[in-house]
């Protein structure tokens, strides 16, 4: 919010034009309550994850459990193979996906931003039309599974999200409005090729829009579980988000893969599995990076949301 609120004081900058004290206090109180309403669910999950399992079973999910215990995290770290594996998949998909998405979208957006390129219009429409009409889930799925044979392939987690028509058009608008055509002309007169111009002049001048799009795409890739749900059946290739989803449906999913559980059972002991707390600890591990990163990055998201109209 920095960019917007900080630039200009709200309409009440005029000292005569301010709210009455009770109204102002009411607004403050309201927002304090609403902000709590936004954080409290996350806090509840954190508290459950550090609660003692039997206390949770007895008392339910509590903000102030009567007994704390880190057993859930201990369990997750003792046999962290699936989590580490899924983290690795998520990080790879996010990094590789965001990078390729950025490159491919910028490469597409630049030519259609050039007014002297005679085919700029049809190619703009070509990408824009995908925002209006889609074939739906069934044919889309069949293309990936039957035609490209990407079932259980990690590329199926990346490819479908590479191009967002909306961001291509945003980049195009940015290129049109901020890169002076005189600069491009003079570079051409100096004998620079189109690719050189793009890499040496256009990209460095477009860092703001590239950064914004990169952040949105990072969030999209990191938070995606739908592609795993549809395309991935092998545990080796599932992302953190999908691991969380599977853990929710079946907490035993983690236990089945657990060497710890197997060892205990092999030794003839009954395996006590802190399922309630482990489930919540899993969420904390999955959501951790976002909770820590978002306060620093959210102002760029705000900028991205408030960029001007996208014209087709």
């Amino acid at each position, binding site marked *: 919010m920095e960019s917007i609120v900080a630039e200009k004081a709200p309409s009440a900058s005029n000292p005569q034009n301010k709210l009455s004290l009770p109204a102002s206090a009411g607004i403050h109180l309201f927002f304090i309550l609403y902000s709590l309403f936004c954080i409290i669910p996350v806090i509840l999950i954190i508290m459950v994850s550090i609660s003692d399992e039997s206390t949770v079973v007895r008392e339910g999910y509590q903000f102030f459990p009567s007994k704390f215990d880190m057993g859930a995290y201990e369990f997750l770290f003792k046999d962290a193979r699936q989590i580490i594996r899924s983290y690795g998949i998520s990080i790879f998909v996010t990094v590789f996906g965001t990078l390729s998405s950025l490159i491919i979208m910028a490469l597409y957006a630049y030519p259609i931003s050039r007014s002297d390129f005679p085919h700029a219009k049809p190619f703009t429409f070509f990408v824009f039309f995908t925002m209006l009409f*889609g074939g*739906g889930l069934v044919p889309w799925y069949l293309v990936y599974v039957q035609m490209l044979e990407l079932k259980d392939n990690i590329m199926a987690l990346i490819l479908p999200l590479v191009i967002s028509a909306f961001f291509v058009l945003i980049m195009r608008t940015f290129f049109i409005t901020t890169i002076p055509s005189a600069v491009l002309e003079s570079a051409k007169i100096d004998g620079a090729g189109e690719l050189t111009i793009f890499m040496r002049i256009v990209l460095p001048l477009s860092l703001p829009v590239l950064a914004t799009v990169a952040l949105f795409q990072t969030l999209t890739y990191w938070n995606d579980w739908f592609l795993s749900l549809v395309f991935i059946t092998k545990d080796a290739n599932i992302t953190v988000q999908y691991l969380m989803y599977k853990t929710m449906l079946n907490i035993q999913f983690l236990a089945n893969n657990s060497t710890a559980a197997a060892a205990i059972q092999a030794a003839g002991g009954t395996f006590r599995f802190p399922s309630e707390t482990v489930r919540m600890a899993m969420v904390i591990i999955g*959501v951790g990076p976002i909770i820590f990163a978002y306060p620093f990055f959210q102002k760029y998201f705000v900028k991205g949301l408030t960029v001007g109209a996208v014209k087709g």
Partner: protein
Amino acid sequence: MDILYGKFQKSVFRKYWMFYLMMLPGIAILVVNNYIPMFGILIAFKNINYTDGILGSPWTGLRNFEYLFKTKDAWIITRNTLLYNGSFIVLNLIVPLAFALMLNEMRSRFLAKLHQTIMFLPYFLSMVVVSYLAFAFMSDEHGFLNTTLLPMLGLDEVKWYFTKEVWPYVLPLVNTWKWVGYYTVIYMAAIIGIDEEYYEAATIDGASKWKQMTRITIPLITPVIVIMTLLQIGRIFNADFGLFFQVPRESGVLFPVTNVIDTYVYRTFLTVGDIGLSSAAGLLQSVVGFTLVFLSNWIVRRINKDNALF
């Protein structure tokens, strides 16, 4: 003419060949990810079997659609999709607008920024996480509502995931919780763009805060309100798959109130395996959605050309 045109084409290509090369990866992905599936809607008119393949399978005309409309589901999923999205559109207008108007009156820029940041948090969480958060409150056995809050208020336990009646309230609540930060940002930006002089003049004339709000702020941001709303109306046939799939935790008892077109297509296709029914439902959604986008854009265009999508 033809020769001239051919020459022109050739010279354009010679001059701009690098552009085509640059666009090539993008074109390839759009073709595979978007355009081939568009032609795939023909599946809805076929009786697909895997031995004949998609092209070889026999045509069945509108048979799939007949089946679809014979099921009870067709009515339920259409009703649910439209009613939920309708309520989301109203809530995503009123609540964020009220929030933006109130935040705008906050004198402390630091506090306004802080609240805005916190309110934005749900936007960053995936639906899987949101579903966990809801579960922590609504779980039958251990949920905070059933174990603590409801007994404290002297109310009976509610089996949330087995009680149809509560979900028409729960889902709009969760959806608003997730999106209010996002839309507040957009309305804040519009409000802050209003020229300060209007308010100065109004203060001199002795206009109350309420008058300023109803006579200056709201009329001046009406274009933004109208456009944001119409854009959502254009997508009223497309439900948020994550919300309806993850948050009710696929509880079958709840399907009559949580099944929407998107979840229906997913389940009939990938869980049940009925290509005919699911692709027929998918095709209807695509075509009606396309018409609505055009219609709403046409209206936006008539209001303000600059805000139209195309």
